[in-house]
């Protein structure tokens, strides 16, 4: 069955926060184009999927969400932090 819309929204917010914390994702708040932001997020999802050896789709699928919800270390997986 398709994911319930509310659940999908929650997942998107969770994933966005995860990518901000661990993959240096910055929402382009001033962008006029929502699609540009989604492309950027898909790139970050690809980066995360590649790191964990998941199938690289750029989509927020079940396996990717499951991996994001695993208990983990708070240090980013890629890039520096200050």
């Amino acid at each position, binding site marked *: 069955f398709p994911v319930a819309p509310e659940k999908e929204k929650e997942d998107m917010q969770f994933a966005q926060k995860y990518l901000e914390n*661990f993959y240096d994702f910055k929402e382009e708040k001033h962008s006029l184009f929502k699609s540009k932001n989604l492309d950027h997020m898909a790139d970050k999802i690809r980066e995360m999927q590649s790191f964990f*050896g998941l199938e690289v789709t750029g989509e927020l699928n079940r396996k990717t969400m499951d991996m994001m919800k*695993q*208990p*983990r*270390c*708070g*240090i*980013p*997986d890629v890039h520096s932090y200050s």
Partner: protein
Amino acid sequence: TFPRNPRWKKEDITYRILNYTPDMLQADVDEAIAKAFDLWSSVTPLRFTRIYSGDADIMISFAAGFHGDFYSFDGPGGTLAHAYPPSNGIGGDAHFDEDENWTKFTTYNGYNLFLVAAHELGHSLGLGHSNVFGALMYPIYMAKDTRNFRLPQDDIDGIQALYEMSPREEPTEMTPSKRPADCDPHLAFDAITTLRGEILFFKDSYVWRKSPYFSEIEHDTISTFWPSLAAGFDAAYEVDKKDRVIFFKDNEYWAVSGYNIEAGFPKPIQNLGFPRSVRKIDAAVHDQNTKKTYFFVGNKYWSFDENTQSMEKGYPRKIAADFQGIGHTVDAALQKNGHFYFFHGSNQYELDVKTKKLVRVMKSNSWFDC
């Protein structure tokens, strides 16, 4: 490592435990932290000294939510801990989320402090995250057996890239032989077993993993899957109905289920019914049809009934008497697709399971599409 490879420029490093979690006895926290430091000092020239006041290079604390840095904790689950790479001030410090349930046990009701501390101290010394599944520096927490825990090779390689040991200091066990190439015509195995539909080939500390779920042969080390097991298995076999794999090394054996080593192991091989004169097993294979396991020792073999958990009468027998064409010792054995595969040096002998007759002889690495 982190960008620009931050590392301590000295070998004597101090640490201080600023406070304790109420989840554990203070002595258990002290022990977990000390053991975590021991892991890293065993493969580097670094020496760690605990101090009880003043500034230490690595300050260790438990805190919940916002705790004075830019990385607030998030309640139970999610982020468990974080640590800063080597530098002054907050550099090197390790913070543990007090909203987690910390434990000294390997359990699914809490997080093992030793495992998490060992990971965080890796950051404190300059290691970033590894994408090698099973490495200590992999970012996801995985409950695993911590008895005789050994640092996986990926972590050793990482830390030794930052802190070189002089040849005099380097423990000999940390310089394993190089993994032979898949298609090396001289490739021979110590042990082979199936595991949940996959086939694992063992040689020294190395594992070749052939899986129906991915097309390439995966290369791992034994410590990746079972950190507390020593490398160099003599034999291995799977009882698939029990989801159990048995590993033999010298005169002891271990039972594992997936990544977990079952409690109560190792046990002496005499528990299986071998006389004291048998010091080690050359190879083992389980026949899924008869529920018998064959153990190969020298030019003889034994038959073990998995149902009664006892050695069958009338054994040992000569291998050559029952398995046509096998006039030598067996290094490793495997049952797959209705055939036994007996490995000797760089050759393998395919036999029909029912008739025990030789079908063909192949190179040992034929499983790797060479």
